[in-house]
């Protein structure tokens, strides 16, 4: 992951988003959605907790 001091914050955060997507993990989209749609770190943690545990439970039950 490389950020660029000559780019603004928004552009650099796009780099992060792209990087997470490129990892091709089932968790990539969950992480991106939570990172960019949460109001603060507590909100982010709650979203991750709900989405990730839901994903794991579904997978284990299969």
């Amino acid at each position, binding site marked *: 992951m*490389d950020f660029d*001091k000559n780019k603004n914050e928004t552009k650099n*955060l796009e780099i992060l988003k792209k990087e997470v997507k490129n990892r091709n*993990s089932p*968790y990539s989209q969950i992480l991106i959605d*939570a990172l960019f749609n949460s109001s603060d770190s507590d909100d*982010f*943690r709650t979203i991750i907790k709900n989405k990730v545990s839901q994903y*794991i439970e579904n997978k284990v039950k299969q």
Partner: protein
Amino acid sequence: MAKYFIKSISIEGFRGINNAGAPLVIQFQTDGVTSIFGENGKGKSSIFEAFLFSIIGRIVRFDDYHGDIKDKKTIKNLFHTGDGSIIIEFIDESHSITDIKVKVNANGERSISSNASANPEEFLSSLNSALNYLDYKSFEKIILTSSEDTGKLFANLVGFGGFINIKDKFDKITRTSNINNDFGKTAKENSRIVNNKRILELETEIKKKLSEINVDIEPTNKTQILKTINIFLGKEYAIKRQLNTKVNIDFDGLIKSKIGTEYEENTSKLIGQQDSLKLMKQLKKGVVRFTDKFITSSSKKLKDAYSLLETPNDIILGKLYDDALKGYESINEFNKNTCILCRTENLGNHKNTFYDNINLRIKSYNKFKDNYNYFYDDFIQKIHSYSLIEIENHYIDNDDNFFTKIERANDYIENNFFEIYDLVNIVLSYKKRILNEIKQINNSIKQLKALIPPKISDLVDKNNSYMFVFNSIKEIENLQNNNEYNNKYLAELENWTTFSSKIKDDYENAYNILMNEIATSIDTETKIFFKEIMGEVDVIPKLRKENKGQKVNILLEKFYSNSTDLKAATLLSESYRNALSLSIYFAAALKSKNSGNFIILDDITSSFDGGHQLFLLDLIKRKIAISSSNKNGKQIIFLTHDGMLKKALNDNNKPQNKWIHYSLNSNKDFTILKPITSNDLRVNLITKIKNNEYDNSGLRIYYESVLLEIIENLNLEIPFSLINSHDEKMVSKLILAISEIVELKVISKKIKSSLLPTKNDFKTYIQQFGNHLSHWSSASKSSFTTAALIHNVNDIDNFKKSFQYNCTCLKNGGWVYYRGLTKNPTLKGCTCKI
């Protein structure tokens, strides 16, 4: 990305600026510097706050205020009727103008609109950067805080504040304790351990039970065990079906129907005794565990607690103190603040040895009691977890109630009776009782078996054993299923934690490289700017981003005899710290890509002496402000109250310098960019009277203004302290002072007496104004008629005119104050009337 500059601001009814119907309008030098000088209380910071409130949506300095002292109702001007209003015009490089209209209501809430921008919120958000606004309280923070917070402020300054939020988010989800809480990781791991332990226990019991009925099958061989139970059920109860763990078998019902009524009672007793034996064996295990390690550690804790007491009497003293406190507390109106016994700290500095001793002993006792309570809670918890209460309920007489004794533990303290060894002995005696019970139950089982024919007794044994084995196998199966679920869950959770941790590490590395590059890139400018403000000094600042976390260190390069860099905060004095903060700030601002190409500075010179203030001003002018020779510079809006800069700012106020300078003047009604005269106040006063908006203070302000104007224009030697007094009778005192100085001047022939009011005239004025004022201060607003108020204004005007002459050729009828008091005024080509 377009660059925006501030073209103008118009303020009405916001903070210290009222200006009802006549907003304060300031035009800015978009390609240079605009400086605004205003003495304290003239509304300078209100201008700064108007920008912050409009662009950011809040008044930033309020962030540091505790909720108790914050009142948003003060955002709108308190004297202003209706909403407050701020209009800002932004202009970009192509001269296109974007207007932002901000309304603030009585609750301090903001609403925004714009003619030019479809989305004014988004437009303002694009201009929102910490680099655009700086006041004297904010910039020192970057040095005087932890390295971690400096790092956060630094990231904000250089336009990457959002990165900190992302980092905080990553930190939250990768913290081990949070993973445990959110996904129950540790609970699931512990559950596996407990399940496996229980499975082992059950398998051991299964093996034992099977061997008791001479069946030799490994407890893990579930298929073979079920097959054997199936054969037993078919042979004894004629049940023929494929047995599995999903079905329920009523072993008790089956055996009862098989043996009939003849042996029913004894058989039931036998089964009951066998159940009791099982329970007692479990309780025995609990007692054995309880007497081991726990007793040793509890004993040590209690001994440590005892060691805090100097003598056993300390317990009694402490107990007395406790009782006294309870006694006092039972009296409703008792004042604890004046009770020495209740609060030993009430003794203050008057403690003598006696009270000191009492105080020390009570402290020891309280520490002992804390430790004792800790021990007590721990002990009770263990008793419950080892089911000792069940033993007592079933087998111990009430007369010998151990738990009642424990619950009255305070009595043990009082009587100095409580000893840990008593507890050990009590628990050991319980163990003996349990062993005795086991022995008795075994005897009872033996006797019951003797009453039942061996065939039936064997069947009962087999039935009970198979029942236990079958139920145990079912339990093991459930535990194994639970383990399997937990294993899969934890394995998948590991995939998530590996994924999120790796992203977090990669993100942090990239973030740290970025911050390091930025810190390095502004390091040179920071050094240059610091030197420009402070001159040739020994210290050279240095910015260093640490490789881990968010820390940024502000250091001083090694100098004198030091072989390492020094931390800047502790070595530097306030002015040096501020010079360094400003240098970092300016260096960062010049690198900023934010579309708001302006910097608004409020009172940044406060901590500098006159010389350094001029150095700072010079730096801003040459290297920070935009100009033909510094095209990457920023539009500067410079607000100051510093009188020492007045001349320098005025000198710069030239179009060729790309510099506009304003002086701010105000009273509670209006703020303007030129000196306020008594005529300005008069116009405002008459308007208010005619609009029926007179608010009781206008006349007094006008009186005072006229008197001060007379003193200033006629150069009367009135003491400064009197002019600035806030005395209720200041107007009368000023008139009297003017009268006396005029009289002195007449006597000393420094004044031509015929030009000015006589002593009697002054007396009349004092009386007349005294009446006005006393009426003003005592009467309500409604008692004044418009005509009476206008009459009062005219009286003041007439008084004022008695110190002026009138020349017809001058503007507005030409009333002018006497410049000299010794001769009649003359003006060429003009008729002048005294």
